[in-house]
């Protein structure tokens, strides 16, 4: 019986037709493509994207720079007397991230001791491409703080 079946199988090409039917059914199935610039998938809540920095929360402890495995966070600060309170405060001179080399591992956020974190990646921003390599790939303090004025990915946009 099996020999007979095997003989028939040689000519009937059932295996090939099975394959054709699978692809044929896919012809009428709903397509999976996401038309990117028009439709966007919402990133997950924990999605690690572009950095944001809040200078007021930041205590200038350098822990993020130390925790960074590839040392791309550059922090300079100085002490300054606050006239209003009469206390000395740390002021950030420089908070740069060399985004060209960043691998978005999130260890800087993990290392940040403030609550809530003063540097965080869960901004749902992933469109980091620019035409000029120095424009966005080397983020300085102003760009990192720009999230207040310029949320690159608003909640409405995600909901759309």
């Amino acid at each position: 019986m099996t020999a007979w079946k095997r003989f028939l199988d040689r000519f009937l090409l059932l295996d090939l037709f099975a394959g054709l039917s699978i692809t044929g059914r896919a012809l009428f199935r709903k397509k999976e493509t996401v038309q990117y610039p028009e439709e966007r998938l919402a990133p997950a809540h924990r999605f690690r994207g572009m950095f944001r920095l809040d200078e007021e929360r930041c205590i200038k402890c350098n822990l993020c720079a130390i925790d960074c495995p590839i040392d791309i966070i550059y922090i300079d600060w100085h002490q300054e007397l606050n006239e209003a309170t009469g206390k000395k405060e740390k002021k950030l001179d420089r908070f740069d991230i060399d985004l060209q080399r960043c691998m978005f591992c999130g260890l800087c956020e993990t290392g940040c001791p403030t609550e809530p974190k003063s540097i965080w990646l869960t901004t749902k921003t992933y469109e980091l491409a620019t035409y000029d390599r120095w424009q966005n790939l080397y983020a300085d303090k102003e760009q990192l703080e720009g999230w207040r004025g310029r949320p690159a990915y608003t909640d409405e946009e995600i909901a759309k």
Partner: protein
Amino acid sequence: MSDGPSAVGEGGTPAPPAEKPAWERDPVVPEWRDADDDPLAAALREALPEAIRSVKTFAGDLTFDVERERLADVARELKTAHGFSLIVDVCGADYPNREPRFDVVVHLASLPPDRAYRVVRLKTQTDEATPVPTLTGVYRGANWPEREVFDMYGVRFEGHPDMTRILLWEGFNGHPLRKEFPVEGIDTGAAIYSEHYGETMGPVAGTGTGWKPPKPAPPVSDETEEGGAK
């Protein structure tokens, strides 16, 4: 590897209810112990008495310190008499302050169903001038890892069929996993295309972020270095 005192998550044995579970206690840091009483060690000592310098165990890993010349013999004995039929790995390590400075570390495994699963480590010491007997005669799989050790440390293997560099190119100047090799890389261009480039010309390692002259690696965990000047 047999169960060590600290082996990770072995089967998930629940801790007795009276005391705290293991993950809430301070970690038990493993220590080196002599393991001469291990049956495998005893058998090996008997078969090759002068080849084994010491037998130790750390975190459940059995480590044989082997005379350099007898490395292949020990591996062959382990393979034929004790069923260590799988070569896991051959790798090197560099201890610049020691004489001889290099370690060659071999991991062998015995497989079920014939034997219980076990990994043993063979270690031997050598320097740049002295080749180590190759394991390719015992395990053909030692071929590429040994080439890698040669590539990274400059340790030669005697009797290896193809003792050439594997990950780096022929003509690369230096052995990058030695401790004195600069992390920033070296100017390698001259060595590859010496007919085209002079000593200081040519493709330069690290040009992507700006080449720096070689200097010793900075201690990464040191906080004082991190704050200002980076």
